[in-house]
């Protein structure tokens, strides 16, 4: 069975009309894993075959009316999955099996999803490329978006990635990277699936004090737009387009033209503090990381602090330094102030436009190892994504076509809780 062309919605239709079974889906996934996981190293942990088949049979015994009934899903290895090993792709947690379930995976399971396994990632999600895994480099990634870790992989794989508003989806049970930026995000094949997943994951959580109390919308209801008439699309000259790879400029422009063709009006908006985003991000994020990784002190979880990889150590050092007395004001506090200015930039911009258009990554996908020894260039990968995380805004990454046979992505950024708007615009764009 070929599952490559199935979306969540189409698979559900086929399951409900009994064209396929959940067992078919699970077996196809397991077959793919057997064939390819050794080469691509997508999954760090795969759930036991028998358990998966049993779950699929149970789903098949129902009428598949649950919103994700029998749908195989892979979650990034940051999510605590009860009784299923969770390593955050770090050797420190090599042997850690959680005794509790994250809110997101609980909701997915309750919706009928079958969690096939845990996806590889950068260790502790430190990076946008997946090369910082303590295990083996990742060729594909899916889970949390702190500085772009969902949108970049989505773009590099010609997929749709949604980073919701900070607090829209619960962080409970997800290994923390930078708590004030971490967002539970997802990669799907199209906008409809993305809206469908958010319908399941979004909502207030009594276990997460930073989750947003406002009730989520029915995001599938937002997918009605055929054109973009009357939509004001912001474009910022400050968004450091200069760092963009020249090869990408043409493709990004084409995509912008498409928005115009659909009736969207392009309006220039200033975002004067966004050029400082990467610097701000790389002070605040390591600061929070240095504290969040303190619990792995060698007393619990088996492996000690010597098992941290190079990137984790680098970030712990930078963060510890930034928070130390005598440096706190010059680094952490200064960065917090810039963060406030960046937030204000966006708030002002959204007084004039509905969404803001930007590339996702400044360069084309590159070969594994090509840049891993150049952390500063790697940090610049976050140039278009990190200001969005610093501001807690939602952003939808969409495929924009190919350059040199490599996928390119764009993102549309909205004001807080504007996920419906992003889906509706994204849906109209996707149809073209």
């Amino acid at each position, binding site marked *: 069975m070929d599952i490559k062309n199935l979306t969540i919605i189409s698979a559900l239709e086929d399951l409900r009309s009994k064209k396929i079974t959940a067992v078919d889906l699970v077996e196809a996934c397991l077959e793919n894993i057997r064939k390819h996981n050794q080469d691509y190293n997508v999954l760090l942990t795969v759930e036991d075959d028998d358990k998966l088949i049993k779950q699929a049979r149970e789903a098949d015994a129902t009428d598949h009316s649950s919103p994700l009934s029998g749908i195989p899903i892979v979650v990034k290895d940051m999510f605590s999955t009860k009784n299923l090993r969770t390593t955050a792709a770090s050797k420190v947690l090599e042997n*850690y099996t959680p*005794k509790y379930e994250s809110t997101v995976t609980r909701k997915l399971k309750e919706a009928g999803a079958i969690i096939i396994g845990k996806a590889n990632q950068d260790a502790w999600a430190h990076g946008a490329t997946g090369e910082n895994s303590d295990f083996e480099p990742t060729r594909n990634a899916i889970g949390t978006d702190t500085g772009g870790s969902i949108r970049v992989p989505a773009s590099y794989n010609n997929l749709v990635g949604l980073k919701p508003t900070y607090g829209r989806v619960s962080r*409970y049970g997800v290994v923390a990277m930078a*708590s004030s930026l971490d967002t539970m995000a997802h990669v799907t094949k199209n906008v409809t699936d993305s809206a469908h997943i958010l319908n399941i994951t979004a909502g207030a959580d009594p276990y*997460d*004090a930073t989750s947003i109390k406002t009730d989520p919308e029915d995001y599938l209801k937002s997918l009605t737009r055929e054109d973009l008439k009357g939509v004001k699309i912001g474009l910022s000259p400050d968004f450091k387009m200069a760092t963009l790879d020249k090869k990408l400029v043409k493709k990004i422009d084409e995509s912008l033209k498409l928005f115009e063709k659909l009736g969207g009006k392009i309006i220039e908006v200033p975002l004067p503090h966004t050029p400082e985003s990467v610097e701000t991000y790389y002070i605040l994020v390591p600061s929070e990381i*240095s504290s969040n990784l*303190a*619990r792995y002190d060698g007393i619990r979880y088996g492996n000690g602090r010597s098992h941290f990889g190079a990137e984790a150590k680098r970030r712990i050092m930078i963060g510890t330094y930034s928070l130390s*007395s005598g440096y706190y004001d010059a680094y952490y506090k200064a960065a917090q102030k810039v963060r406030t200015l960046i937030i204000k930039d966006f708030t002002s911009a959204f007084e004039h436009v509905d969404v803001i258009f930007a590339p996702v990554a400044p360069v084309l996908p590159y070969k594994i190892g090509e840049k891993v020894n150049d952390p500063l260039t790697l940090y610049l990968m976050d140039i278009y994504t990190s200001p969005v995380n610093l501001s807690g805004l939602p952003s939808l990454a969409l495929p924009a076509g190919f350059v040199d046979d490599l996928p390119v992505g764009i993102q549309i950024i909205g004001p807080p809780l504007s996920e419906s708007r992003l889906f509706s615009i994204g849906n109209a764009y996707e149809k073209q």
Partner: protein
Amino acid sequence: MNTYQPIIGLEVHVELATKSKMFCGCPAEHFGIEPNTHTCPVCLGLPGALPVPNRKAVEWTILLGLALGCQINEHSKFDRKNYFYPDLPKGYQISQYEEPLAINGSLEIRNSKSEIRNIRIRRVHLEEDTGKLQHTTVNGKDISLADFNRSGVPLVEIVTEPDFRSVDEVDQYLKKLQKIVRYLGISGTDMEKGSMRLEPSISIAQIAKHSRSYKHGKDFEHKLPDYRVELKNINSFRFARKALEYEIQRQTEILEKGETPTQQTRGWSEAKNATIPQREKEGESDYRYFPEPDIPPLRISNEQLAIINKQIPELPDAKSTRFQKEFSLTEHTSNLLAEDKSVADYFEEAVKNSLAASPSPLTPIIDVANWIINKKIDINQTLPAELIQQILRSKQSSQIDESELEKIIVQVFAENPKAVEDYKKGKLQVVGYLIGVCLKKGNFHQAQIKEAVEKKLRNV
């Protein structure tokens, strides 16, 4: 010649008696509970677990702040205090640094010279307790066991300015603070169970003779000694006294030699009856405080404050003053009654009961007070109304007794005519003999008999 002035400040930790812990739903009770049974992903600091603040604990901290005359910060937040220790599962403690819930309060005490002293309270903040380590031997091996039942229990820290000038003042403050916390009903403040913990810091200022004596206040601050000794491991008010007295002696001796005591942390050793050095402190530890990103900042509205303010009961001082006014009791008696809120309530209930019998009260208020204080009435066993009846009965019985006593004395005098005669002749020592004989004949107080016998003899 120099004189020496102790300068003492206090940090007091009080564990709140909330049902659940500070940031999770686990029961906050931990004393005598089987280890690691009151735990969950949050208080074990498991990967991905998040803290959600306990509303009651926040309210109670504000309540204490208000009772201590503090200003309540409209904007407050939690911070992370980063340090490694095996009883700290997250590698940081969630505490309050920059914006504590309450600041700038004060507590008035009266020292042994009967001077009123105002002890300034710098801050009252809320944090989480750590787990507990137990160093023990298992199968001949020295090991440390960790119990996380206490991890995440709400803990309030009350920090004073260095305003104490004697050990006695510290003692008065601690007793008063404990009384207030108990009145508020927010903690058992049981030193033995560790629900109240003390950390005094002490240094000694040298004052050249004839210079104006040291008084606390702003003009004094910049003259504080440039060292400070922190005292830990103090498990009772008595140990606090002993440790401080020991330190005054020790530091004075060092100063007299012309040296400066080392800045350090010392612990009280009951076995050695001395403080012993725990660790040297080069400067302040760097805890790399930063705002706790997992908890949104707190905003305390005026409406919330007003509601909490209404929950403050009449506090011990006010109660004692009212007792003096309303019931014409002495300050001493009123203070004794106000010592414990349940005793004070009991007293008032009994008085009400007595006064209810119009037109005249059943028994004088002073009798009720004296009975409660002197006879150590078990207020949980005797109802207030019952107490009044007891007092009444005892009065009646003592009246009956008087006539009984009269009969006995007449009888004894008749049986001992010689002794009576001797008394008449001026041999006063026979009084003792007659009292002794009477004592054997009935169950009376010696004083009561003495008075009656002497009266009778005068009239013979």
